[in-house]
């Protein structure tokens, strides 16, 4: 049987997490190719609507990476993100989407190892959930 390879849409902020992902590369750390990056300026640019769109279109997981609280390049962008993420988790459950497939993590530019680790662990987790069921029953 072919191994199940999830699709994980990742929104990475330019200053911290995307730089951390670059560092994971420079350090030649390994993680699964399920991690599919989209670079944004700041995690606060990530509209909850994007996340919902990703799921309805068939993504198996969505990962949002930003600077550590207090370290945001734009001072407080990641606080907005944190609030929106909490809200999103609630909304997900009411919409019948699986909020356990969402992941928010703070990864700094120096945390290449953390990026690889989170990518590995999160992919394993999504694998254990199997394919995203909501792509089969579009309801909106």
């Amino acid at each position, binding site marked *: 049987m072919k191994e199940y390879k999830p699709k994980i849409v990742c929104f990475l902020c330019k200053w911290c997490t995307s*730089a951390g992902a*670059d560092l994971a590369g420079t350090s030649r750390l390994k993680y699964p190719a399920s991690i*599919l990056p989209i670079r944004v*300026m*700041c995690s*606060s640019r990530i*509209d909850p609507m*994007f996340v919902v769109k990703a799921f309805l*279109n068939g993504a198996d997981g969505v990962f949002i990476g930003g600077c550590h609280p207090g370290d945001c390049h734009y001072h407080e962008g990641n606080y907005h993100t944190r609030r929106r993420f909490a809200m999103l988790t609630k909304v997900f459950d009411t919409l019948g989407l699986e909020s356990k497939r969402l992941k928010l993590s703070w990864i700094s530019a120096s945390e290449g190892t953390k990026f*690889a680790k989170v990518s590995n662990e999160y992919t394993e987790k999504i694998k254990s959930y199997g394919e995203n069921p909501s792509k089969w029953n579009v309801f909106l």
Partner: protein
Amino acid sequence: MKRIGVFICHCGINIKGTVEVERLTEELAQYPGVAYIENYIFMCSEPGQKLIKDTIIEHKLDGVVVAACSPTLHETTFQDALEEMNINRHQLEVANIREQCSWVHDDIEEGTRKSSLIIKTALEKLKLNDSLTPISAPLTKRVLIIGGGIAGIQAALDIADGGYEVILVEKEPSIGGHMIQLSETFPTLDCSQCIMTPKMVAINKHKNIKLYANSEVESIEGFVGNFKVSIKRKPQYVDPDKCTICDDCTPVCPVVVPSEYDEGMSWRKAIYIPFPQSIPATFTIDTENCLGFNPIACTKCSDACEPDAIDYDKKPEYFEEEIGAVIVATGFDLYPVENMAEYGYGKYPDVLDGLQFERILSATGPTGGEMHRPSDGKVPKEIVFIQCSGSRDPERHLPYCSRICCMYTIKHAKLYKHKVHDGQPYIFYIDIRSGGKRYEEFVQQAVSEDGIVYFRGKVARIYKEADKMIVHGIDTLTSKKIEIKADMVVLAMAIVPNVSAAKVINNLKLNTDENGFLIEAHPKLRPVESLQSGFYLAGTAQGPKDIPDTVSQASAAAAKVLALLSNDEISHSPIVAIVNEELCSGCGICVSTCPYGARELDEIKKIATVNDVLCEGCGACITACPSSAAQQKNLTDEQIVNMIKIYSYL
């Protein structure tokens, strides 16, 4: 529709090793919008860029996707290439298939598939990119330098000599940093004070330099070319203009405190001048220890002061300065000996750190340069130096090599031997790192001429018995367990970032590594710039280094700043927020969301506006807007959704 050219880079085998570039080229040739596709071994090379430029003409391209390394590396290179061909630089997208793909995956099938997806997202984004022109803003031709060690001093002098104004902020009452504490410096054994004081005096005299000593940076607002800095000057309670440095005040002061300059090995009064050559040359009252404050219990110094220079009621002063660029040169501290359980937790008075030993060696130090140990003044005859104390120890202390301690330890042993001819220095080491110019010669010469004994191995434990430190070490070269009854032990403690700088660095949102050192924009090619525009790095704040390297880096940072200031105005990224006036309801949510005050409500039209120069393009307001009236140029919701779709449908 745009005619887009796609260029896939092999990066030697860095990309090609995991990504089948030929197959990818064939596959993507079919993708809608791709007018031309090609792969090449090194896209960033001259022929690589020429390939792009020639193809633009030949195939009448109006957009380019380069699939290569991270955009932080070569985005501007390729943008410049486009511009040369009269194509707007925002018609370029870089697909990062190296750092975030080929280097992190092994499987060729997967690597190729993921690269294809990444390139498609870049294509989708590019299709909707607008041509934008940079926003130009005025440039303030003044520079702020934080930290007045040798790094800050060198950079200040270079920039001031270049004709621009420098604001130098030092938190201590005097500039000089750690270098002014050193005795003689490797590899040439120049007297540190002799080479340092002229530079300090030059700072004081230079017409382009404004020095704020005893001061701290409170905040910096704005963006490259246009910062506003708030500086707090702590009160010194002595008016520098009136003080004649007569030193009548210190003898009468009843309070004694350990001297910072002598690393706690001598005493100063509560009113003091850090050291005779201090710049600015004035006395300071240390409020934490002075009895004269709250309630007024002592006015002895004020009574003694003829020129009436002392004023206990002085309050902190606040200043605002406009500047265009910042150099951070906040320097280092030593890892505290108190952290070393195995070496007695700093409880033994004759176990010293390197800076304390420098003070003992120094002619201006607590012993006038004679070799006496702190506990009882005895001349140490058996002296042990322990390298890598706290360094290279990921398990219990710090993982990195502190880079200068091999060298200063051999210097210490040599200078000791010159003072105590019948004494014997021993050095425990793991490796000797003497890579600088004439450094190896310095080490070898010291060993042969001065009979310094190196033991290869670490010290496991120091016990104190009577007035001796019993050092339990090893020589792994001969398998001998070594025990030395030492009179004095000097620990080559690890270099750590200056503790009090952490707050400022954090306020400025500068990136630091896991050890707290500032991160440079690129470790090889942009070593003196921060990723944050307008911020430059110099000296040990960026990583452990010795004086030659510190000075080189400081001059390099100065050169970068001079290059910036040679422009007449600054160009600001046009990736800013915009408002769709049709949709905007004037709710004002974006105004409160923007961290830069770039948003305002137009009271007449009842809609929000964006001040392009202030907008940093974070996008927070766009997500916040309930009416979808706010958008970000070249990163619109539609563009992002199209990218999401590429990844989601498989």
